[in-house]
């Protein structure tokens, strides 16, 4: 069913938890705006991501705020409006899928079809749709099985199919790929992308997996301690974190103390002092000479080479530690700088105590203090 309504989630949520015997005080205070496509809520566990989903689905009640979905008011603390969860039409995929254990796959889907709408005609359509979904999610041969007899990937497909039958106007996915091996993860991402393309509803996805973020996100909200540090399109957030905190939550960048020593708008250049070296970057609008702050550089943008005199934009660092991994060698330098090189590069680099790290001018991204 295509939605003629404007596809937008607009949720202002404030919820306070006083300190309890076994937990500290916590406050969720966020303003979430999401368009079509997948919006990833990214952050460490305990940051308030799942709580945000629960508020939107109606399972947690904010102390203040309002929730609009497709311009329909679902919750407004001031007006004492709270639509019950079963009328919100939020398709919620829980962490452990929550397929009813006492029903078979088909019965799970039938349950969704029978409770979804009061209109008889729609229900009939849904029952027809059930077979299509069983087919397209490769569940037809498993339809008579109980959830306990399914693998993790099958359970997940069944849970997603069950949600789609109820014809949701948005999808809430709480760490959907948790516990899946890489191959199943891949398959699930494909299913999800297909679903998104077919359904045209906004999707909120909670994760603390950066790979998932890269793979699925259209927009990203970085969440920490009940706050959104930054929201924006995937590219904007991943390449230009708004603050050092945002960069830390992402964990994608090396965060290096730096000081601006020169600025030249005419030549679109700047000079920054980094440790004992000086490197060139693009012009930094909004900053002054002498500003201190941090240089954020993704490890993939750093070029590591044995020390050579007079290499442009190179800083010299002492090697601290290396660890092997499936995708190359992780190199840890002094000052907590990280980089990754492939095995061939490592053969070339090993044995050096000090290495040069070249930061291309285009990769220089400065955050003021």
């Amino acid at each position, binding site marked *: 069913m295509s939605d003629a309504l404007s596809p937008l989630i607009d949720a202002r949520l404030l919820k306070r938890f006083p300190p309890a015997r076994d937990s500290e005080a916590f406050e969720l205070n966020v303003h979430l705006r999401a368009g079509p496509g997948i919006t990833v809520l990214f952050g460490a566990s305990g940051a308030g991501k799942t709580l945000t989903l629960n508020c939107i*689905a*109606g*399972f947690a009640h904010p102390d203040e705020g309002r929730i609009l979905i497709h311009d329909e008011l679902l919750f407004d603390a001031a007006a004492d409006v709270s639509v*019950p*969860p*079963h*009328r*919100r*039409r*939020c*398709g*919620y995929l*829980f962490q*452990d899928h*929550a*397929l*009813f*254990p*006492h029903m078979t796959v088909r019965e799970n889907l039938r*349950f*969704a079809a029978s*409770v*979804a*709408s009061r209109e008889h005609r729609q229900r009939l359509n849904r029952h027809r749709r059930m077979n299509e979904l069983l087919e397209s999610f490769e569940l037809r041969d498993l339809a008579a099985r109980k959830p*306990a007899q399914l693998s993790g990937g099958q359970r997940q497909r069944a849970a997603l199919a*069950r*949600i789609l039958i*109820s014809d949701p106007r948005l999808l*809430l996915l709480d760490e959907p790929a948790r516990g899946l091996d890489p191959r199943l993860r891949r398959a699930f991402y494909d299913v999800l992308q297909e679903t998104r393309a077919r359904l045209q509803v906004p999707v909120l996805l909670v994760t603390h997996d950066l790979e998932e973020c890269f793979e699925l996100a259209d927009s990203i909200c970085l969440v920490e301690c009940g706050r959104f540090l930054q929201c924006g399109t995937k590219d904007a957030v991943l390449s230009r974190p708004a603050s050092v905190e945002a960069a830390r939550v992402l964990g994608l960048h090396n965060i290096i103390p730096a000081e601006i020593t020169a600025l030249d708008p005419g030549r679109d250049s700047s000079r920054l002092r980094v440790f004992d070296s000086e490197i060139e970057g693009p012009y930094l609008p909004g900053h002054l000479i002498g500003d201190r702050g941090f240089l954020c550089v993704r490890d993939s943008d750093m070029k590591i080479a044995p020390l050579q005199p007079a290499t442009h934009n190179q800083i010299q660092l002492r090697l601290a530690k290396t660890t092997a991994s499936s995708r190359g060698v992780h190199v840890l330098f002094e000052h907590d700088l990280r980089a990754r090189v492939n095995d061939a590069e490592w053969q070339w680099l090993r044995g050096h105590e000090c290495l040069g790290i070249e930061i291309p001018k285009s990769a220089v991204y400065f955050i003021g203090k």
Partner: protein
Amino acid sequence: MVSPTGSSIDWFPLWLSLRVAALATVFVLVVGTAIAYLLSHKSFRGKNFLDSLITLPLVLPPTVLGYYLLVLVGRGSPLGHAYELLVGQPLVFTWQAAVVAAFLHSAPIYIKAARAVIETVDYRYEWAAQSLGASQWKTFWRVTLPLARRGLTSLATLSFARALGDFGVTIMVAGNIPGRTQTLSVAIYEAVESGNGRMARVLVLVISLAALALLWSSSYVSRTSRLSSAA
């Protein structure tokens, strides 16, 4: 005193007790499950008070409970009067009053345990049902109750066993009318009082065996449920 040995055992109290306990268990299941669900899923004012009120019958002397019941449903009370109008006879000193007594005897324990059983149902199943569009009522019938069924069945068996055993409240509100309101436990008391040792021995043995069988089957049900949920 001469005990009337050789006289045949009167089985009426056993059948009456079974009937009373069965009816009481039905009421306990319906009312008790509803209250247990309320206590486990809703927050409302006076919830703790309600919880205490439900526990009260467990600690009060049966005579006190019986007294309250006599006041509450006696012929002079509005409730008793309404019952009389509706059914055509007063409630007190009938076997139906024994059902009320048995209900009071077994409901508190059932409600407390049923609340715990219902709370063990993972809330995510209920949330999932609701986010799919099921009302709370539908969620209860199609998700919560089926998932709690084994635990509740085991509790119902226990409830039945407990309903079989009430003495104090029964004798207060239903009296001790042989052939009409005399339940098993009251008949044992009567038999001992009147020196009918054989009758007392037989009835004691019967009720003990029945209770043991019920307890065993109750633990069997909960054991298999634990096994099947672990699988």
